[in-house]
């Protein structure tokens, strides 16, 4: 669900364009967390290949603190960006630290770690993710408390991670399936996406296409991203005709080209992209 904002975050974020050396220095220092925050984001965004990048991001992740209502939010903001960056850098060295982050009380941090583990295709994470989700719609998928709309577990990120990692064990499928009936369409979309990735069963692709007709734009956007992730090319026409920004349709169609196979053939999908420029 990233990339919905047209503006480059580098422009809206605090910093000027910086060098890799400067980013590493900012992450290394410990006085100014806003500098660390930006540096962690920068290293992920620029796909840094510097040998110190991953160790420094791991250290930033370990420096997270127990979440308290009044303090330490800043610290975890750095940790969240570090987790996101570690997912983008693709180094399996980061997996153990991300796994231990999955026990953190901060559900936002667990969310970032789950996505990163998905990006790293970390099969080691599958038992832990399943264990966190097995309580189903009324457990992991229930709102935290009245007044707090967040779910007890970051289900959307965790379901997507299971799909991205790609272990299509019956035990995994059984954990995911109940979320197809969650009352929130974004969770249903994530479950259908994961099941499609794990089984290739077009039934789940059709579920995603149905969500492209949902009255809420936010749901249609999520379904676009999920169809791109699974690369189901038979969704080409529904993607073209859904009411959403061309920017998101282009990302979805890129996914159809890169993650899917014909029919329709690649050139047909590319021509549909040309029409959206």
């Amino acid at each position, binding site marked *: 669900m990233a990339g919905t904002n*047209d*503006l*480059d975050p580098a*422009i809206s974020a605090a910093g000027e364009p910086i060098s890799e050396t400067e980013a590493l220095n900012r992450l290394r220092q410990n006085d100014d967390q806003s500098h660390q925050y930006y540096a962690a984001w920068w290293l992920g965004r620029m796909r840094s290949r510097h040998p110190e990048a991953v160790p420094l991001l791991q250290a930033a992740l370990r420096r997270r603190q127990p979440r308290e209502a009044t303090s330490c939010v800043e610290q975890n903001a750095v940790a969240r960006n570090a987790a996101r960056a570690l997912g983008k850098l693709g180094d399996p060295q980061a997996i153990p630290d991300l796994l231990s982050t999955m026990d953190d009380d901060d559900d936002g941090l667990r969310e970032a770690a789950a996505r990163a583990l998905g990006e790293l295709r970390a099969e080691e994470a599958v038992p832990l993710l399943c264990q966190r989700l097995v309580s189903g719609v009324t457990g992991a998928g229930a709102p935290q408390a009245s007044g707090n709309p967040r779910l007890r577990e970051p289900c959307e990120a965790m379901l997507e991670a299971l799909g991205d990692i790609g272990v299509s064990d019956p035990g995994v499928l059984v954990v995911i399936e109940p979320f197809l009936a969650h009352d929130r369409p974004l969770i249903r979309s994530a479950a259908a996406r994961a099941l499609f990735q794990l089984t290739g069963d077009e039934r789940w692709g059709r579920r995603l296409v149905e969500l492209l007709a949902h009255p809420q734009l936010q749901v249609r956007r999520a379904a676009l991203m999920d169809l791109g992730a699974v690369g189901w090319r038979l969704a080409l026409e529904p993607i073209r005709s859904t*009411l959403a*920004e*061309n*920017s998101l349709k*282009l*990302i979805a169609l*890129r996914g159809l*080209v*890169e993650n899917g196979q014909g029919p329709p053939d*690649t*050139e047909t999908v*590319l021509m549909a*992209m*040309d029409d959206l*420029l």
Partner: protein
Amino acid sequence: MSKTPPSSTGLLKSLIAGVEGAVSADGLQKSTYALAHTLTRLAKVDSDGSGLGDPEVQDVIECLLQVLGFNNPGAAVAAVDGLIAMGPAAVGPLLANLDAHNYGARAWAVRALAGIGDPRGLEVLEDALATDVGPSVRRAAASGLGALRLENLAEQEREGIRLRCLEALEAGRGDGEWVVRYAVAVGFEGLALPLPPSHPHRERAVAGLRHLQQPEQEETLVVRLRAGVALKRLDNR
């Protein structure tokens, strides 16, 4: 003027009134869409774009330009379509109003100019591809730079404009957003297709596409694939 079906004057007036009288975001979107759709239909009947009477052209363009500034993306998309259907008649007013509204309106205006393909929009498209903060604006500018309609110009003028387009597209290959580089590939293709095989500008566009096809130079698979399709098409004619 005489070719205008007698009913269109009243029809367009009522459609403009519908846009101006819209009281909700949804209503604005629907009424703008109705106006743009009608314009597209009239433009098909009347491909030289001169079928509407002058005062009507002004009214319609004025109305659509205003919609660009309303911060309603659905309506703006429809208004851009309407302006593209108006063709060259919309270029002067678009250029004249470029700085009159907010950033959002300017971005939509660039997209309209890219879609119309009138060479008068060249400088705006160059500037947008090089400097605009919105990737959606840069991508529209890049594809527009490959689709300028040069057929009515003298050969020397055509060469000069094409050269500027090529230079802008070559610089756009270094854009940080994949979708802009994708549009650059589309731009190179559009620019080269009408040219004979040995034309130096065609060869330069082919070189640009080869660059976008190399994994060492272009990290995004879909961009490399699009450049490959462009090269195949150029090879076949």
